[in-house]
Each structure stands twice: as structure tokens, then as C-alpha cells.
């Protein structure tokens, strides 16, 4: 059995290449993201930073190269293995929240664990209520996304991303759709909660003030990264 050490990177990319048609967005990109730290990816629009996050999450397929999460090559996994890796090791927070409109805040938080049997349904519900409470949304647990503000929706999305206590949290411009005050609150929540459970936080942002608070900053230019 492979033992993971604190020095081993949580995320590694090796010679990643991704093109859309004739446009090469990611060019032979290799990157090590340190474990249990807050790392930020910055860059101009179209620099490929969001695409890189898609490749790391396995939701985008590279033309070449590998992505290793805690040492596992995720593109060598089948659909079931990939899904299990996402469910158990990765949490993702999106810029546009992506909550399911038919479900309440609580049900949205529980959606990732519908097929997870590591804990009982009741234990997951307790955890979901706890997370909603920690993001300040317990009172709004039964509300559907349509009845919530942008900031509230993003808080629910953060709780959903953490329901499995993932080793890695990927955040794609999580404050991009929020006003300054709300954004600051959401950012504090994200960094605070991930620090509490020792999660590696990799955040794509164009906000240099946020990036300045990161332990590590990767700057993307023309599909490549500068550390």
C-alpha cells in the first residue's frame, strides 16, 4: 500500500495538453499542488486556468498527459472508478453555484452521497445540517435555490462540496458572481472550513487580493504556468 506523505503533492499534472479545435488552451503543462494548503491559479481570461481545473477534476479530457490525485492517474480509471474518486476525494465549487433547482438546500447538500454507504443516511443528514449551520444556512435548509440569494446559494454549494470531507477542494472563480462583501464572506468560509479539515484547496481566481492570501500562486499565461 502506498503511504501518502505531507510532502507528496496532492495534485500533479504531467505534460497536459488540451486543444479546442485549432486553439491549444493547455500546452504541455506540468504542475505540483502542495497538500493541505491553499493554492491559487490566476491569469487573464482565456489563459486556460478554468480548463486546467476541469482537467484536474476529470470532467474535461486531455489530449495528452496525466493528472494524478494523491498519486492516482485519474484518466486510467473507468467511469465507476472516476466517479468514486470524485465522490470521495474531490469537492468542487463553481462560479455559477450549480445547485439543482428542484431540491431544497439540505437535499442539494446530500446529493453527492445518495449512493455512498460509508455512513448511514441519518449520519449524513446530521453532517449536512452541521455543514449548513457552519455556512450560516441552517435556517434556510428547506428552501429551494430559487428562493436563495447568490451568496446563499454559494454557501450551500460549499456545504455540498464538503459533505464527503474531500481531500481536495477545487473552486472555480467561487466569488466571481458575488458582490464584494458577500465574496469576502464566502472566501473566508472556504478557506476556514478547508483549513479545519486539512483539505487541499485549489482555487481559480482573477482577483489578485484573494490570490495574495494563498500559500501558493500559479500564474497561467498562454496555456502554461508560471510559479
Amino acid at each position, binding site marked *: 500500500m502506498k503511504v501518502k506523505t505531507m510532502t507528496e503533492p496532492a495534485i500533479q499534472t504531467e505534460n497536459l495538453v488540451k486543444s479546442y479545435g485549432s486553439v491549444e488552451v493547455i500546452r504541455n503543462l506540468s504542475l505540483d499542488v502542495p497538500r493541505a494548503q491553499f493554492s491559487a491559479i490566476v491569469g487573464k*481570461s*482565456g489563459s486556460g*486556468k*478554468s*480548463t486546467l*481545473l*476541469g*482537467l484536474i*477534476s476529470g*470532467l*474535461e*479530457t486531455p489530449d495528452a498527459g496525466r493528472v494524478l490525485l494523491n498519486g492516482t492517474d485519474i484518466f486510467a480509471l473507468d*467511469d*465507476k472508478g472516476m*466517479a*468514486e474518486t*470524485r*465522490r*470521495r476525494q474531490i469537492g*468542487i465549487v*463553481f*462560479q*455559477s453555484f*450549480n445547485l*439543482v*433547482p*428542484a*431540491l431544497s438546500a*439540505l*437535499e442539494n447538500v*446530500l*446529493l*453527492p452521497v*445518495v*449512493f*455512498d454507504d460509508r455512513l448511514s*443516511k441519518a449520519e449524513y443528514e446530521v453532517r449536512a445540517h452541521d455543514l449548513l449551520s457552519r455556512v450560516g444556512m441552517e435556517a434556510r435548509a428547506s428552501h429551494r435555490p430559487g428562493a436563495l440569494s447568490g451568496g446563499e446559494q454559494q454557501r450551500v454549494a460549499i456545504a*455540498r462540496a464538503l459533505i*464527503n470531507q474531500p481531500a481536495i477542494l477545487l473552486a*472555480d*472563480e467561487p466569488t*466571481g458572481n458575488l458582490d464584494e462583501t458577500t465574496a469576502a464572506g464566502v472566501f473566508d468560509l472556504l478557506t476556514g472550513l478547508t483549513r479545519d479539515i486539512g483539505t487541499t484547496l485549489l482555487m*481559480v481566481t482573477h482577483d489578485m487580493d484573494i490570490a495574495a492570501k494563498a500559500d501558493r500562486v500559479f500564474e497561467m499565461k498562454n496555456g502554461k504556468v508560471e510559479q
Partner: protein
Amino acid sequence: MNRLQYLTHELLFRRGRSLATLLSIGVSVLAAVLLISVATTYSKAVQAPMKSVGADIVAQLSGDIPKALKGLVFPHPNALLPADEVARIKALPGVVSVTRGVYMWELPPNPYKSILGIEDGPAGLGNLNANITVGEAITPDSNAILIDSDYAAKNGLKPGDRLLIGTRKFPVAGIVDAATGGKVVRADVYMPIRLAQNLALHAPHVQDLYPFGPDDANELLIKVDSRDLRAVVEGIGAILGKNAVISSGLSFQDTLNSVLFLSRRLGLILALVVGLFSTAFVLRATASAVNERQREMALLQAIGWTRRQIAWQVILENTVLAVLGSLGGIVLALIIARLSGGIQITINLPWDLSSTPHFLPEATRDRSQIVTMPLDISPGLIAIAGLGGIAVGFLAASIATALKRAQPWTLLGAE
């Protein structure tokens, strides 16, 4: 939360779309069940007269047209049946009983009427007596007659009255509802065969054509073992020759076969067309719903659902709608079938089985038989329609989820 709760929330949240899918499947199942049941019921209804035409076989011999259409005559399909040929028919294997009859028309100067003199027996007087609505039965020795209920109503006749036939008045013993009772060829007047034989013996326009004797007949009502029906029909044909007029369930069915084939096939074809349109509509609606939810499906993938789990969620949702739609369609079809009171069709009997000559105005009405039959919705039809509806929902979702879609991150990511 489990997947069924998710499913319920999803269907209720998109209730407009759910209702459209549910209704399209429900209406298709309803239409298919009703179309096929109308076609099946129609097929049964057109065969219904066979059950009331008379005996299993009515055998006659075609002869000549009377020289004068006056007084008592034999219709031309009712020529004299030679006694030795009747005996050979009685001896055919499969023949259970032969009831002889004398069938005549009475033409002016007396008002028109058809007359059937008939022997005793279950296909003859016995059956008529069993269907008397008013009055008394007659015996083979009786001098009284029975009157058909329609004829009695039309002419205001009742038991105790006397009816002029030829030059003699006959007492009316009873009124018989032969149409309802069936099992005998219909006439306006029924009498013991010896009275009819006597009338024929003294009728100049009968004797002009045939050497009709005091114990002859011109019509046979034959009961046969159903397994031998075709063989007996062929045997009678061989005995009576090319002028034989043989009416049986078989010949009637042969005539109707093309109608039955058409009605059954038409129902099936229409049901298939409805099914195809419904499948196309449900497929389009489902594909459009899946398209609308691409982002949600990408999210499910992002949070750790497998592609198979996502596809099954959509398939389950559609299948639930299909089950509800199919059930609704079937229940509605059963209600409509009950409320409609069935189908009513008018069937023209072959004219040689009619009691009225084709050249009289009444023939048009008298030769038709109205059959009312409740819509036949069999458990098999319900099962096939229900499963068909469910299969449409299931297949539509399976196809829609199998269509190639954009990569999840393209739908979820910020750039």
C-alpha cells in the same frame, strides 16, 4: 435523501413537462385500446347474426321464378326438394337432425306475408313455442298459427284473431319473438308443416312449377356436429348439385372474412400509427427535457454519480410517467367503454335468408339486423397497451440519455 425522493421532486418541479409526457403516453394508450377494441368488437358484432340465422345449415334448391306473382308462390331459391335427396342428406355423417319446412310468399290480392310451415323439433316448432311472448303454443296437429312479433305489431294482430291465407282464415294462437329466439329462419307466419303442405298442394302457381306432393318440403333446417360442418355443407352441395343454396355459419363467415380482416387490420394499423406518433412525441419531449437538464446531469457527474446512475435516474423518471400515463389511459378507456354503451351496427342478411322478397319495399328494412355489442377490452389488450406505453417511456429515455453530449466541464466551468 434517496433517488426516489430526488425523482419525485424533479417530476413535481417540472410538472408542465411531466404532464405533457404523461398525457401523450396516456392519450396514446387510450387511443390504441379504444381503436383495437372497436375493431375487435366490430368483428364480433358482424358475426353475431350467425347465431340467430337459424339452424346450423339452411339448405334450399334454386328453381324458377313463378309465372305470375300472385297468390301463394315458392320464392325462386325455394324449389321443391325431392324426397330421396332429403333422405340422402339425413344420412350424411355428422348430421344430427333435419327439420323440414315449406316456405312460401303470399302475394296479392291478399297482403304480402311470408309463411313457414315447419316440422316439430328443437330447430322447428319446439323452438318457436319456446319463444312465444303472448298466447299459446301450437302442436304438429294444430290448425292454429303463430305470428312473428314484428308482423303482429305492424298489422295489429293478437291471439284469438284470424288471419286470411289463400282462401282460408287461420286462428292466431300466439305471438312469437323469433328474431330474439333465433335458431329458425324468420317468417311472418309460422304453422305446422302439414298446413303449409296443404296450402302448397292447392296453390296453382306452385303446382305450375313443381309436382309438390302432400309430404314434400322446400327448405331444410339441419343441425350438425360443429366439427363436421364443412364436410356436411360439401356433402349437401354434392347431393343437391349446382342449384343448391346452402346457408351456414361457414358461408356467412366466408362472405364476411374480408370485412373482418379489414376491421381487425385497420384497428391494428391505426393503433400502430398512434403508437409511432406517440413514440416520436415522447422521444422528442424526453430528448428536449434531457437537453434542458444537461447542466444538472453534468453536475451529478461532478459530484460523483456514474454515467449509468445518471442515465437510470432519467429513465426511472420517464418510466414512472409512462406507468402513470398508461394506467390513466387504460382506466379512461374502460370508463369510456362503459359509458359509450358499445357499438351498434346494421348488417344486411343474405336475401335468401330474409323473410321478405327483395322486390318489396319492406325488404330493405327486414333484411337488416341491428347488433349492439359492448366494447370488448380484454385483459390481454390492457396488458399489451400498458406494457407498450411503459416501453415507449423507457425507450425514449434510454435513447435520449445515450445521445452524445458536451463534456461536463464545458457546461459547469467559469470560462
